């Protein structure tokens, strides 16, 4: 379980409230239990904590003053966007301030010539594409949570979506950031060109989970909307064939815009929920979206059709119009809530593996599912190897959450073992903090801490998340061997 680092603050709660109200409207400084309650967790609701205070500033200057005040008084600060994160990244710190960016909702500037939009961090992901639609442009990364999640949160998590394989993650689609460091300094990272002077701090900030600075402005890159998009749905009697089909499409020289796989349980759940017309007798389906110019899509559709058939698909359907294309996708996009209907609770995992390891990993997961007596449904960003196993459980049955967490931890360790990673897009947060000790050795973790110290030497931003302390790993790691090495030989055991 998460235990936040204990930080000795220099100011009382009452004095802090007073100081904040000096420059932020009283209704935007929350401190009553009932007002704080809505902020107690993010999308990973198994973990909860009530913050000392929630503040909702509206200007950059106010954010600077909040951070300066907290810095001077040793108060931890946790930034929060929409709170849709799935790894507990925005979980509050009990002795700290939760800094909500919810009021930073403006799209500041759209420049169709340069194909960029400058937006505030609290703008929702989908709102950007909607605002630039009039220019025939869109913002490519499209997490399934895009109606709710904020661009600030997307940058902090380096979020992906179903179109990552072709269009990249958040890190590939942003150009400039304005951030505020813990001591209140406003920094501009990146520039108006395609690169900027010095180290790649833009990359370092992307995926930094609120640990290095608070993002107060984001300049995103926009793409022209493809002339045409077409989706194919292929059914397979065997997940191994479906996995091979993915490799075969790529071997044919085609990079699909989206390439998603669902297994039997996920197919059934989605079909019951949205009636997308999925084949219920299939062991796996692949959804393959092709986009580009009209001619290119026609050519690729017929090629991919052939490849899918040759790879053993029992059925290949091509969406006959845009409405059917959206129906095919609806099942995939609603997969999480659909699976949620099968069981009182579900736990969403997020490992990435080299694609060729898929059959072994699915097999091992099925074995673990039996061992832990918990069902798993699989949705999979197949093109880039990002797995989302959904473990079904019931939190009301004593011990089941703990068993689920242990099962989840085993899945992540499996991902590392086959050469993958514990998180493809949801972040480490507090959820995967123990598995970080398996993926990285103590030197690497220390290097991460040095990166953190370069921005936040006192460790006040989101303490205890993303990178575990070596002591935490020593406690956890007693059972684990990292790449054949003895874990943390330099630390004493306790």
């Amino acid at each position, binding site marked *: 379980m998460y235990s936040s680092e204990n930080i000795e603050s220099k100011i009382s709660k009452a004095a802090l409230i007073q100081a904040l109200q000096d420059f932020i409207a009283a209704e935007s400084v929350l401190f009553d239990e009932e007002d704080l309650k809505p902020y107690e967790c993010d999308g990973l609701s198994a973990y909860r904590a009530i913050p000392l205070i929630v503040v909702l500033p509206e200007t950059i200057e106010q954010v600077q003053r909040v951070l300066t005040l907290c810095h001077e008084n040793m108060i931890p600060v946790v930034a929060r966007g929409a709170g849709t994160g799935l790894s507990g990244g925005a979980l509050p710190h009990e002795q700290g301030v939760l800094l909500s960016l919810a009021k930073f909702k403006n799209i500041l500037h759209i420049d169709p010539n340069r194909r960029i939009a400058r937006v505030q961090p609290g703008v929702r992901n989908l709102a950007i594409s909607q605002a630039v639609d009039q220019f025939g442009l869109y913002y490519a990364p499209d997490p399934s949570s895009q109606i709710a999640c904020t661009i600030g949160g997307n940058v902090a998590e380096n979020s992906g979506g179903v179109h990552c394989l072709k269009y990249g993650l958040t890190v590939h689609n942003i150009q400039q950031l304005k951030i505020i460091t813990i001591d209140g300094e406003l920094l501009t990272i990146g520039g108006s*060109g395609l690169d900027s002077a010095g180290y790649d701090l833009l990359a370092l900030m*992307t995926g930094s989970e609120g640990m290095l600075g608070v993002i107060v402005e984001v300049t995103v890159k926009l793409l022209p909307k493809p002339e045409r998009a077409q989706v194919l749905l292929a059914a397979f009697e065997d997940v191994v064939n479906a996995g091979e089909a993915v490799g075969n499409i790529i071997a044919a020289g085609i990079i699909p815009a989206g390439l998603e796989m669902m297994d039997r349980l996920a197919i059934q759940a989605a079909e019951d929920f949205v009636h997308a017309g999925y084949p219920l007798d299939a062991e796996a389906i692949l959804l393959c979206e092709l986009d580009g110019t009209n001619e290119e899509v*026609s050519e690729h559709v017929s090629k991919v059709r052939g490849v899918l058939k040759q790879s053993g698909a029992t059925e290949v359907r091509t969406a006959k119009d845009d409405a059917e294309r959206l129906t095919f996708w609806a099942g995939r996009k609603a997969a999480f809530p659909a699976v949620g209907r099968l069981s009182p609770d579900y736990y969403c995992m997020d490992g990435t593996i080299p694609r060729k390891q898929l059959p072994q990993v699915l097999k091992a997961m099925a074995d673990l599912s039996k061992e832990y007596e918990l069902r798993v449904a699989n949705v999979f960003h197949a093109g880039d190897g990002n797995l989302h196993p959904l473990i079904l459980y019931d939190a009301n049955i004593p011990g089941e959450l703990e068993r689920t967490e242990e099962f989840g931890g085993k899945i992540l360790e499996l991902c590392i073992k086959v050469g993958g*990673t514990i998180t493809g897009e*949801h972040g480490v947060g507090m959820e995967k903090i123990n598995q970080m000790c398996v993926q990285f050795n103590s030197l690497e973790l220390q290097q991460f801490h040095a990166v953190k110290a370069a921005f936040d030497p006192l460790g006040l931003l989101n303490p205890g998340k993303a990178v575990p302390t070596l002591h935490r790993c020593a406690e956890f790691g007693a059972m684990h061997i990292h790449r054949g090495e003895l874990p943390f030989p330099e630390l004493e055991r306790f």
Partner: protein
Amino acid sequence: MNTDISQQLQQQVVQAYEQVTALRIIGGNSKAFYGRADDRLLSAEILNVSGHRGVLSYEPTELVITARAGTPLAEIEKLLDDNGQMLAFEPPAFAESATIGGTIACNLSGPRRAYVGAARDFLLGCKIINGKGEIMSFGGEVMKNVAGYDVSRLMAGALGTLGVLLEVSLKVLPKTEMVKTQLFHCSSIEALNKIHNWSQTPLPISASSFHDSVLRIRLSGAAKSVQAARDTVGGESVDNAEQYWHQLKEHKLDFFATEKPLWRISLASDIETFTAENDSNFLYEWGGALRWLKTETPAEIIQQAAADVDGHAILFRHSEQQTCFQALSPGLLRIHKNLKQGFDPKNILNPGKLYPEL
């Protein structure tokens, strides 16, 4: 050729750390002149990575290649080409000896950069030796990986000042089916206007350049789509244009044959400040977002002009490279120094190569 000399390299760094000796990292040493000239580098001990070579893994359907840093760029490109794939960021080699490590350390990308991304965008992971002689791995061989800070990308463009690259994993892409080039005679303003109109529509443009009153556009993709795009953009069709794009990438066009200092200016594509009508000292790439300029104008003036439009200017090639890279704001410089301290506390890796303070 396949040789692992990571232990030797590590020992040399450990020793340098203990004795506080500066190290000058070299790969193919094809361009010792990129980056700042600094006295500390002149007297530095050489750390030669070029012997550390060999492709460690490559599976075309996984779209990933992992190689030791000293592997010649040419060897990697040949291997990919044999499998119908490529390094999509089209790195300039500039010399046969160029290594993949040097390429990533410089974060150099070619004509396709504006359309698919830079070297850093294709970097998935790396193994490094930091300034204390510690060997560490970050990122990995998978497309999506957000565990820990993105230290791999931090290495791209750091010019070896944060760590010695031992291995890099890169995302690769299939080569395109058809490539065609169209040419237009026009002024620089007309060229920028054309490019901006095109870039708002989904045309398969993979490169663009403008110099000596000629705009060139390269189209790459499925055959039918390239043919259709050709009709849309118009202009004259150019045969055998591959050689032109190659010479542009490798700086072998006549434009680059000069004794004058060569500036690389990166800015928003529609900026008109660095637009001189009929000025043969300018060459544009990347839809206008990259401009090469040959000039004796002092560095302060060029870099100030770039800063005024929120861009930056690098003195790319010149004998006297003191102010090579654009100055950082005090806040950013502080973060840079802290990072340098965190990776290379005794400042032994390529000291002064990027900035005098680092």
